[in-house]
């Protein structure tokens, strides 16, 4: 997937190359300046952020925004951060375990009802999840999960995408590996655990990262199923923060920076996996 691509157009003359980089840099500014501005503002004082025209450098450099959100019992941002971290981690673990087992069964085992099961799972890929939000709310309400950790960890883990994605990957593994393992006396659980999973690390990592990102960023569901300030995850928490600091932008931007940091770090570390996972889901989907 990462082999250098033959280009549609030659690299062109030196002048064209200057033009190309001019466009690339202009686009980079468009994509990065808003994010840089978020960080800059988070490091300003309240008055500095109100200044017109605004200054590019935070002068004086101030921890005001971060102090406000970290020492505020009405808006326990650090608590939300931890909640989000725990929820996203557990969520992606749950996706990995359940989806990999199901995908293994659907890709490499034979059994009655396999085709129907797979069709049913893939069929739900075409139903917009938002159209199921009201019944899903009633279900978690019946389970007494409203305002608990489970409500942001479990329901979204019934991911048809995860099963589909891993099944495609498992199908691509050579059969000889399993046969050798079978000859060595391994049963299906051992083949799954000791042969298939280790060989699937790239796909598992991709799914783990994508699940983490999705859960970390989820907004619509948590704002309706979490209420208590100490139970919130970051996305609904940020909304609350905006409500209580209306135009105090250093504070709001400090919250936004905290919510962005883990996923941006994850993106930098797993960039290749994320981008490949996205492109693979598009092409072989």
């Amino acid at each position, binding site marked *: 997937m990462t*082999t*250098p*691509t033959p280009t*549609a157009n030659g690299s062109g003359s030196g002048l064209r190359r200057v033009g190309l980089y001019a466009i690339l840099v202009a686009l*980079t500014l468009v*994509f990065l300046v*808003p994010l840089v501005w*978020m960080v800059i*503002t988070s490091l300003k004082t309240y008055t500095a952020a109100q200044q017109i*025209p*605004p200054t590019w450098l935070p002068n004086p450099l101030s921890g005001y925004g971060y102090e406000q959100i970290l020492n505020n019992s009405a808006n326990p941002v650090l608590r939300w951060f931890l909640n989000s971290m725990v929820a996203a981690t557990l969520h992606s673990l749950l996706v990995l*375990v*359940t989806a990999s*087992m*199901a995908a293994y*069964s*659907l890709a490499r085992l*034979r*059994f009655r009802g*396999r085709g129907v*099961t797979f069709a049913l799972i893939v069929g*739900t890929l075409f*139903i*917009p999840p938002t*159209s*199921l*939000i*009201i*019944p899903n709310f*009633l*279900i978690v309400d019946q389970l007494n999960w409203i305002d608990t950790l489970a409500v942001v960890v*479990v329901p*979204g883990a*019934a991911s*048809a995408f995860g099963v589909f994605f891993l099944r495609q990957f498992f199908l691509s593994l050579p*059969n000889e590996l*399993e*046969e050798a393992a*079978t000859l060595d*006396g391994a*049963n*299906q659980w051992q083949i*799954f655990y000791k042969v298939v999973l280790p060989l699937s690390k790239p796909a598992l990592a991709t799914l783990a990262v994508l699940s983490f990102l999705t859960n970390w960023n*989820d907004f*619509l569901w948590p704002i*309706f199923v979490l209420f208590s300030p100490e139970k919130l995850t*970051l996305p609904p928490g940020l*909304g609350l923060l*905006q409500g209580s600091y209306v*135009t105090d*932008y250093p504070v*709001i931007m400090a919250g*936004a920076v905290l*919510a*962005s940091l883990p*996923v941006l770090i994850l993106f930098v570390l797993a960039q290749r996996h994320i981008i490949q996972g*996205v*492109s693979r889901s*598009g*092409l072989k989907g």
Partner: protein
Amino acid sequence: MADVIEVGAARGDAPPPAATAARRGASARRTGRATPYLFLAPYLVLFGVFGLLPIILGLWLSVHQWDFQLPNRPFVGLDNYKELFSSDSAVYGDWWESIRATAIFTVLSVPLLVVVPLGLALLLNRSFPGRTFFRAIYFAPYVLGVAVIGLLWRFLLDANLGLVNRLLGAVGLPSDTPWVTNMPWAWISLVGVTVWWTSGFNAVIYLAGLQDISPELYEAARMDGASAWQRFRNVTLPGLRPVLLFVITTTVLASANMFGQSFLITQGTPGTETRTVVWFIVEEGLRNNNAGRAAAMSIVFALLLAVVSIANFRLFRYRED
């Protein structure tokens, strides 16, 4: 454990592994009956409760008057559906306003989200030093959630303090545009932010598609003296057709499901003109306690999207022939 013995016995007099490939299905797979189902079980429990049950429950809710605060949930047949289509019902005006808002956003954003990322992908498909770096930069906003994007752009588009108006003022353009409170600016803002936020995602999908187009086709076209535009029209676009179909379909669905941007950036204003369908449904179901009516809306909405997706597939199939 019995499986292993059975398989082992079957394999006892089998030819060496290399020669068994053809027989794999017959022996290695015929293990314990329950094993495949045991592997599936954890996922199927989740899928049953949060994937299939909501579909059935949604249909059931939609034919009942379901109020969280009332003890009785009487069967009302198709009444919840009827009131969505009869202009004298209380919900009619707001419901269609939200459909209209969603349609406006989708119609404005989809063409840009199909074309702009294609441009990015063509740019990034050239070979030059730093290509991976630029690819990552353009993708980066996408990894941020809508909550962050919403707060950030609410600030950037603030009429007085926002960077956007300041920068426009600095180059001599009007610096008092009410980006989030007036029309048509509110729509321009929502579409613009969404293009900024998600273009990198579609660009990556295009890039993968571009890499699957055989370089020989370009060579041949060049030999025939095709211009850059002709190569794009006759080689790149046909080669991207399946990818285009995927991008258009997923982008239409994503745009039609828009909620966070208008909830956070324009906050529905002016009036409730930018309140989308998803927003209206959850408000009706979870704030106004009308789960039955909201379920009916969800179903009508899902059917509308299905029609759009099918039309999209048809259109592309037709063009392919």
